[in-house]
């Protein structure tokens, strides 16, 4: 009996072991190998695997293993691999998380390679500096973006709107919302309700002459900033010119559910590299406007790196990893494959090479980028630890305001208090 069970067990485990090795066989025997991990979508994955193929053809000795998953699951897996000290050699980074990972010691600085194996001397300095933490370069910009008010050009034309969408103010914005709502008889509202979008609120704070987070990572936005922001949207809601409150409190809805994609509203706030994705689901042609300005205020919007490539603490063959990184931003064939999918490249040479081949939407985002250059403020410092939690708190407390279950002033005070506590606890 014992024999029988053991044999059965060993047999099956053996089969499992045999099966498990099946997919793990490498494509071809290269003596060096690196792993590249990114978040993606079908389009981006196709392009990235094509890049890997191209790179491997040109560098026969280096095998690159591409590892990908959607944004939502990316960070869970990343955290697990970080804890296990098994991070991929190269990881895709986001501005929101850069500070967290650098300060916990998960990334290696790139400075020692710059000018030797990483050639970035002629790159735009501003976007490049977005990858610096405490004066060291921890993340290589592989595309820039900026806030954008995506709008429905058909609705704008029909409502006869001729506002200067680069220099307009919040007052103009309110009037546009009214016009569009009136024109469509209420079927299409002027805009999504951005009460809960901390990204847009950040521009609002900067227009008031402050940063959301000060130099020491403290919350420097004030309760008045928050209250005035929520009040403005409360007024627009009351006037019935922004999207229904019940659609607003769904947090971070996928692009396909946004007002502009569904056709409920004529404007939404996004990042400029998302415009291709929005156009893919929107029925009408989209256009790009800046976040409205405060009359007489400071510039609120900024240009930031949309994605980075970072060298992880666990990278073994750093030389191969840097070679790959360098090819990403310099090799014309590779940057041709990548296009603008991850954002606007910060190498002027690459941009020039891409220009003749752009699609209509891509051209829109490049033109928009050129138009806003002189209107934006400096890049804010990377968000401190706990910023993700502050973002959640903003949405949570704001939800009560949107639903009319909390007073604006009181909720604003509560949020600032909560935000300070969160940031302190995270240090």
């Amino acid at each position, binding site marked *: 009996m014992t024999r029988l069970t053991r044999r059965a067990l060993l047999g099956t485990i053996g089969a499992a072991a045999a099966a498990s090795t099946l997919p793990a066989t490498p494509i071809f025997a290269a003596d060096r190998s690196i792993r590249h991990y990114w978040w993606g979508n079908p389009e981006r994955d196709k392009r990235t695997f094509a890049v890997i193929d191209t790179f491997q053809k040109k560098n026969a000795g280096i095998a690159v293993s591409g590892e990908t998953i959607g944004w939502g699951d990316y960070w869970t897996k990343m955290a697990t691999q970080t804890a296990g000290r098994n991070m991929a050699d190269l990881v895709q980074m986001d501005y929101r998380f850069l500070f967290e990972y650098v300060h*916990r*010691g998960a990334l290696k600085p790139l400075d020692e390679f710059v000018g030797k194996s990483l050639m970035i001397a002629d790159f735009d300095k501003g976007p490049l500096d977005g990858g610096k933490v405490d004066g060291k370069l921890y993340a290589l910009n592989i595309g820039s973006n900026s806030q954008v008010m995506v709008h429905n050009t058909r609705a704008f034309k029909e409502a006869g709107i001729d506002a200067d969408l680069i220099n307009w103010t919040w007052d103009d914005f309110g009037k546009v919302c009214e016009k569009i709502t009136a024109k469509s008889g209420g079927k299409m509202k002027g805009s999504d309700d951005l009460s809960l979008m901390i990204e847009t609120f950040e521009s609002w704070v900067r227009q008031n002459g402050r940063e959301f987070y000060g130099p020491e990572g403290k919350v420097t936005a004030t309760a008045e900033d928050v209250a005035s922001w929520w009040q403005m949207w409360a007024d627009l809601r009351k006037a019935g010119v922004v999207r229904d409150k019940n659609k607003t409190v769904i947090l971070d809805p996928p692009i396909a559910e946004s007002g502009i994609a569904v056709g409920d509203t004529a404007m939404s706030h996004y990042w400029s590299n998302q415009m291709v994705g929005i156009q893919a689901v929107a029925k009408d042609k989209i256009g790009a406007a800046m976040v409205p300005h405060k009359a007489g205020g400071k510039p609120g919007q900024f240009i930031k790196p949309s994605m980075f490539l970072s060298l992880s603490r666990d990278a073994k063959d750093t030389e191969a990893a840097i070679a790959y990184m360098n090819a990403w931003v310099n090799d014309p064939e590779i940057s041709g494959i990548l296009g603008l999918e991850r954002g606007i490249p910060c190498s002027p040479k690459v941009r020039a090479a891409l220009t003749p081949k752009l699609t209509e939407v891509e051209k829109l985002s490049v033109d928009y980028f050129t138009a806003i250059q002189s209107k934006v403020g400096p890049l804010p410092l990377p968000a401190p630890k706990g910023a993700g939690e502050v973002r959640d708190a903003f949405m949570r407390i704001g939800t009560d305001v949107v639903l009319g279950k909390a007073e604006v002033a009181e909720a604003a005070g509560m949020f600032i208090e909560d935000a300070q506590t969160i940031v302190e606890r995270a240090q």
Partner: protein
Amino acid sequence: MKRFFARNAPAYVFLLPWLIGFFLLALGPILASLYLSFTRYDMVSAPRWIGWGNYEYMFTRDRRFWKALEVTFTYVALAVPARLIMALGVAMLLDKGLRTIGLYRAIFYLPSLLGASIAIAILWRQLFAADGVVNQVLAMVGIQGASWITDPDTSLYTLVVLAMWQFGSPMLIFLAGLRGIPRDLYEAAEIDGTPRWRQFTRITLPLLAPVIFFNLVLQTIDSFKTFSSAFIISNGTGAPADSLLFYTVYLFNEAFKFFRMGYASALAWFLLVIIATFTAIAFFTSKYWVHYENERD
């Protein structure tokens, strides 16, 4: 000694795979998480011992912890009975006499197959939206429905409905249990003229008790640990306004979003204590209402 061996050897041979799995694979991580619950651990730098600090913070300063408990307990209290009654009722309807039973069984199980997929999240948001299908149906009978899923006062109930709708697995287990009840018992009762409800209380319930017990314990444990549906429907945040902040959603966010694995482990161990208490109560009282065939007399 020899007798001890002779008595126990067969059992331990059968238990061997489990023993290996438990002691070599499962126990280590469990103990590790217990250790981590007494540390501050951000998953990148090494864990730092802080004694009871996490537990202290949890009970004295963490408002969201209490909110998470409230949400979870409310859900358990509603979803477990609702789901079990639904499952038992349908299982009994399906157990007897219908030729098309296989078709129904498949149909009723289908929703459970969809699990907590992204498709379900999108669908649920559409169904229970202010202008959703549910309200359209309600409007036909003259009821003005709320915006169920975005209103913090009602959003939890949409998850209870989801739990009721996915009653496939307890139903299947009930069915398997009902199949184990000998038909002749019912036939004899029928001849004696025992009314149906009496047959239910005298035959079905007592003989099904072990399976009811299983479903009760398992559904309670599962409901306390509800994660995927709440996570995916609330976009991972417990929104709107923390009304879907299930305990495990909170725990997950603390661990993987806010890098507080130590604190999350403490949360997990407290949840374990709660669940273990409920399970122990269930096992303890089961002596009085669950009788097994092999333990008669």
